[in-house]
């Protein structure tokens, strides 16, 4: 009922949940970095479409996996107050 004076220290579960929400917000930042990384590789052997393709799809799959884990946990721990 009081959105103003929330407790200074949160209990363990709410604390975990807030950090989980932080992770959900930061995941696309990490993704942007990883997807842009091949731009720095330059030409030569590392510049081949096949290698870069492998890298991109591997990163892509890992991000999906991470996103799935985070969002499942976020939904499961959904409390009554979701102002996070």
């Amino acid at each position, binding site marked *: 009922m*009081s*959105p*103003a*004076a929330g407790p200074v220290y949160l209990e363990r579960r709410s604390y975990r949940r807030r950090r989980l*929400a932080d992770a*959900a*917000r930061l*995941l*696309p930042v990490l*993704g*942007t970095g990883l*997807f*842009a990384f*091949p*731009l720095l590789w330059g*030409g030569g052997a590392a*510049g*081949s*479409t*096949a290698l*870069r*393709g492998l890298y*991109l*799809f591997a990163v*892509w*799959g890992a*991000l*999906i*996996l991470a*996103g*799935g884990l985070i*969002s*499942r946990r*976020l*939904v499961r721990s*959904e409390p009554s107050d*979701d*102002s996070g």
Partner: protein
Amino acid sequence: MLSFNLLVTFCLGYVALLFVVAFVAEKRAQAGRLGWLRSPWIYTLSLSIYCTAWTFYGAVGYAARSGLEFVTIYLGPTLVMLGWWALLRKLVRIGRSQRITSIADLISSRYGKSNLLGVLVTLLAVVGTTPYIALQLQSVTLSFAVFARDTHVIAPEAWAFSDLNATALWVAAGLALFTVIFGTRNLDVNERHHGVVTAIALEAVVKLVALLTVGIFVVWGAAAGPADIFARIEASPIAQWQTGGGRWVTLTFLSAAALICLPRMFHVMVVENADERHLATASWAFPLYLFLMSLFVVPIAVVGLDVLPEGANPDLFVLTVPLAYDRGALAMLSFLGGFSSATSMVIVAAIALSTMVSNHIVMPIWLNAVRGRATFSGDVRKVVLRSRRLSIAGLLVLGYLYYRVSGGGEALAAIGLISFTGLAQVLPALLGGIFWRGATRMGAAAGLGLGFAIWIYTMLLPGFGETVLMPAQVLADGPWGAGWLRPQALFGIGTMDPVVHAVFWSMSVNTVAFVLGSLLSFPSPLERLQGADFVNIYRYGAGTRGWASHLAEAEDLLVMAQRILGAAEAQALFQDAAARQGKQGYLPDVTPEFLDRLERELAGSVGAATAHAMLGQITGGAAVSVEELMRVADETAQIMEYSSQLEAKSAELGRTARQLRDANEKLTQLSVQKDAFLSQISHELRTPMTSIRSFSEILRDGERIGPDDRARYSSIIHDEAQRLTRLLDDLLDLSVLESGQGALNEQPASLHDIVDRALAVTAGRGARLRVERDGNDRIALQTDPDRLAQVFINLIANAEKYCDAAAPVLRISVREGPGAVSIDFADNGSGIPKDSQAVIFEKFSRLSDTRAAGGAGLGLAICREIMTRLGGQIGYLPGQGGAAFRVTLPRRAADAA
């Protein structure tokens, strides 16, 4: 090899299947059995309209031309979906709590329900989407052409041009039909189309399966497994990475923006969303879908380049590679996949755009044209639905014309990027709107307008090549020879990639104008309220309160709401609002909260700006009160909490006071009426008594009375005694009912028969009343037919007595709800004044003193008691143009029968 006729047959069969699926889903939704229709998986699959024919055919073509660059189109949406917690969740929450109907509605609603912005975004969307619809038509006709030619060499020009056009025309007509049937079936207050969503979910599965099957065939059938494919890629013309950093980043950004800003994506993601938690599933499942769609794109492109002759159209590799290996069935599946991608995009885009056109262009014009009368006459729903149907047809005609005029020569990817860039112009206003309270309408209009103009100048017009609007000389030297204004090299910077150039200039000028305009202008109060509500959506939850109260009559509002929402829905809404205020009946107090809720419900049907304007016509315009501005201005949470507590308390006090006042008024009125009744009942009892006494005296004392007079006098005595008996019977009946004595004689009965009986009894009295019945009353009931007939007789007799129309008509209509049957008795007289509506069911109440009526004011009181005993209700139904009563019977009785 597959015959062309077989292909057409398959295609028609598939379309028929879609119709059936949509129809069944719609039926299930209507019956309230949503079940899997509202699962997160259907939601995720419906998002896949992001993958249009551009993905299905174009991605392979794109990869064959520029290698891995195609993947940026899917990386952007992946990033946005993964970040759902920060952006999409907020967008969906706003969409649901503000009843947003489209992206134009969101922008218009956020910036003070501005019609100007609504029109601007709608125009942008129509201009940006038409080429895209043309693109879908083109891809379907090209894929038909592949089979028609029955050869591996793809040369669309070789197929008779008129045949291609005819195919495109048929496809467009079929799509328009489907969209009109399932997209504008009813004017749902939530804008949800279960039939359409289910059909596109099925199409999503078809296109994924098709592309995966072709991919698996290519890797393990045409090539010798992943290692072989890897080697082939290394040896192919696209072995080297070709994309510059600028292009890579720009395209990723563009596709991320498109996921939010494309009208069709906004529609399925925000408007059709039924549950916020579905977003959590879609946040990883949709990227997975994109991942699978892109997985085999490069292998197919490489094998296509390898196997097919020089000059084959790479946009059709998905079809032609299987054909080259003589796999007819696979090609067929792939064709259906492409067909699905194209049709689902066109259907949803047409629905989203027609909503925007009707809510932001047609409705404001119509409201202006019938100024003042709009709220009272004509069925608004019909106007809205008709304008949507016409817009859908209009959009497909536009798309077809664009296809004809452009000749369909360009590569698919180019058109897609033009469209994406156009719609991305909404992004600054959208993001600013939901994250920055300082964003204003002026800023949004400036940003959108400038971005739109630059996009047309640098991208859309040059995209056509040399035309009347953009001659070659302007392209090469700039307008009037001003070289620094060259469309693809503004300020003389000609070394940029054209796409990057257009995106850079349009987005930067747009954003700068938006920010500067917002910083320098001053928002209206309504804008500030909306801004605070949008930005702090998680904190407030409640919506805007922008209405000055007590300027409107609840009955007028009900009449208007019935025209937009439909009679049953509007009545339910008003009844619920009245119940929340602790009142009975259909007319709540016109509080700002109620007006706000009503406006949001209306906005769900006709858009925020139109709903605002229509309410404004009745209430005489909105006014923002000081308290509401303070709510916005108060930054400190403490004051906010304090004031919200005060607000809640004062609302509660107000409610209690209102109830007390009502009760007191009722008591005073009843006491007055009781006195009047006592004197009346003495009068009623005395009059017959007096005549009985005097005539019996005459009979006793008079010796010379003839037999005729004797007979006359005794019949007078008899009549008067009967009148006394009737009066006493009524009183007795009522007291028996009230004390709960006397058993009900419940038995199975037909409503139709009971109404017949009531009409037969009342018809005997020389009726001038004409009765109209609808045929819905063949319903079996388990009830006391005698008592129910008594209620009906009373209502019909009342209409006969009190209806003051020249040609009185009584309309009896029956409606079957899920839990109850309701029977309405409405006449065409002048109705019952509002202040009397509260007391007509009380004992002894009689509205007029016309003794002609002859009753003692007990009829409706008896009716109410009977209905309570039968487990039902009787109530006065306002806003029907005359006096109207609704009798409600519970359905459980009928089930038992």
